[in-house]
C-alpha cells in the first residue's frame, strides 16, 4: 500500500505548485490510472515516489513505512518504472542485456539472473527477440522490453509514466494487453499515468489531476460519469463518450452498450 499524505512540491521556490497538497492511497494489487493534461503534476508525483525529486512537503508511506533519506534506496527496489521514450531507457546493447541490467546492479547471481531474464521476456512475448538490438525493434516492442526489464526486478509496484504516448496504436494495444495479464496475476500494483482517457478503461481506479490537485477519484465508471470535470481538466473524451453525451445525455456507457442502445 502506498499513501501520499498532504504532498506538495514546487519546481522553483514560490508561486506555482507542481503538486498542491495531495492525499491519495493506492492499495496493493490495484491498477490505478492517474490522468491529467500536461503540467497537471502526474509525473511529478511519480518522480517524488521514485526519489528522483527531493525536498517535498508532506509524507509518503510505503507499506506503512515513511519514506525518508535512509530507506529510499531500499524502498526504491520495490518499484519499477517504464518511461515515455522507449529509446532513452534502453541501457543494454541487446534486449536480454537490457533486461539483465537492473539485476546486475542488484548483484543477483548469474544463474538466477538468466532465469529471471528469460521469464520476464516470456511474460511480454519477447523471448525470441532476446539477441536483437534495440534499434531494430518497433516502438511497441521496445516498450514491452522496458516492461520486461521492470518485471525482472520483481517489483511490488510497476509504474508506467506515459509509456504508450510515443508509440503507435498497435503497440499501445500490445502494452495494455500485457498490463492486463500482469494485473490478472494480482501480485503487482500498477500505476498508469496517461493523458488519454481511452486508456484507463481496464484500470480499477482512476485519479484525475489538474494543476497539481486531485479533481476527482473513483472507479473508472465514476470518473467517466463526470464528463464536465474531465472537459474542465482539458482532457479529450473518447469518441464513443462524445457520441453518448451528445445523443443520450450525460450518462456513461461503454462502447458496446452504446452500440446496443443506438
Amino acid at each position: 500500500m502506498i499513501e501520499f499524505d498532504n504532498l506538495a512540491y514546487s519546481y522553483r521556490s514560490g508561486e506555482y505548485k507542481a503538486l498542491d497538497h495531495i492525499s491519495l492511497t493506492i492499495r496493493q494489487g490495484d491498477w490505478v490510472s492517474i490522468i491529467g493534461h500536461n503540467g497537471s503534476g502526474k509525473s511529478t508525483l511519480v518522480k517524488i515516489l521514485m526519489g528522483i525529486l527531493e525536498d517535498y512537503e508532506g509524507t509518503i508511506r510505503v507499506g506503512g513505512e515513511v519514506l525518508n533519506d535512509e530507506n529510499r534506496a531500499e524502498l526504491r527496489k520495490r518499484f519499477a518504472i517504464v518511461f515515455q521514450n522507449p529509446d532513452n531507457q534502453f541501457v543494454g546493447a541487446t534486449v536480454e542485456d537490457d533486461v539483465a541490467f537492473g539485476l546486475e546492479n542488484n548483484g543477483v547471481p548469474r544463474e538466477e539472473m538468466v532465469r529471471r531474464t528469460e521469464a520476464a521476456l516470456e511474460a511480454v512475448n519477447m523471448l525470441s527477440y532476446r539477441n536483437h538490438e534495440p534499434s531494430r525493434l518497433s516502438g511497441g516492442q521496445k516498450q514491452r522490453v522496458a516492461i520486461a526489464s521492470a518485471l525482472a526486478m520483481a517489483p511490488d509496484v510497476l509504474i508506467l509514466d506515459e509509456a504508450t504516448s510515443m508509440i503507435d496504436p498497435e503497440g499501445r494495444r500490445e502494452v495494455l494487453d500485457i498490463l492486463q495479464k500482469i494485473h490478472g496475476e494480482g501480485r503487482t500494483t500498477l500505476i498508469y499515468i496517461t493523458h488519454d482517457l481511452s486508456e484507463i478503461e481496464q484500470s480499477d481506479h482512476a485519479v484525475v489531476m489538474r494543476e497539481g490537485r486531485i479533481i476527482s477519484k473513483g472507479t473508472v465508471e465514476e470518473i467517466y460519469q463526470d464528463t464536465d470535470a474531465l472537459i474542465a481538466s482539458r482532457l479529450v473524451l473518447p469518441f464513443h463518450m462524445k457520441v453518448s453525451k451528445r445523443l443520450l445525455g450525460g450518462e456513461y456507457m461503454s462502447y458496446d452498450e452504446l452500440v446496443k442502445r443506438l
Partner: protein
Amino acid sequence: MLSKMLLGRYIPGSSIIHQLDPRAKILAVVMFMAIVFFANHWTGYGLLILFIITLTKMAGLSLRFLFNGLKLILILLLFTFFMHLFFTKGGTVLIDGGFFTIESEGVINGIYITIRLAMLVLITTIMTLTTSPLQLTDAIERICRPLKAIRVPVHEIALMMSISLRFIPTLMDETEKIIKAQSARGSTFMTGSLKSRLQALTPIFIPLFISSFKRAEELAIAMEVRGYQGEEGRTYYRVLNWQFRDTAALIMMIIFGIILWMIRQ
C-alpha cells in the same frame, strides 16, 4: 561507398574464428603485431601471407570480399611503398633520375613493409569482422581489469563504450530525421563551397546536441531507478567462456611466431 567499408564492421557467422573467445582473439592479434616483425626475407613474408589466407578461409570470409573492403586504405599502403622506394638506399642503382635514385634495397624494403602493414590491417579486420563490438568491449574490460590497481576506471570506460555502441543507431536515425526536417525547410547540404557546406551543418548539429543532452539525462534517471550504483556489488550477465580451443589458438600463434623467428636470416 560507406557500406563497402569493412573497418569496424561485424558479420555474424558460426565459423571457428567466430566462436573463439574475444579475449583470445585480441591477445592473438597483439601477438601477431610482434610476430610480423620477425619476418625479414621472402620465406618469412610468404608464410605471413599464407597464414592470413588460412585465417580468412577459417573465418568463412572470401579473400576478394576482404580486399574489396580494404581499397580505402590502399592509399596508405601505396604511400608507404613509395616512401621506401625513394628514400631507402642500398644495393644496386636501378634507375638514376638525376635528383632521385631508385635502388634495389628500396624496392625490396618497400614491398616488405607494405606487406607487413597490409597483414596487420587484415588480421585486425578479420578480428572485427568475426567479433561483435559488444564482445570486444567485454573482452577489453576483462583484459584491462588489472589496470584497476593503478586506478584506471575500467568498468566505467567499458560501460561508456557499450552505451555509445547502443546509441550509435539511435543517433544516426535522429540525424537523418533532422536532415530531412531541415531540407524540408529549404536547407541545402550538398551544394556550394566547402565553407558554406560546413556552415550548413550547424542547423543539424545543434538540434542533435540538444536532444542528446536530453537523452543523456533521461538515460541517467532510468539507470538510477534501476539501481545502478557503479561497479560495487554488481554481477555480470554476460560471461566469457575460455575454452580449450582458445588456449590452442594462442599456442598455435606462439608456434607460428617461433617458426618465423627460426627461419629469419
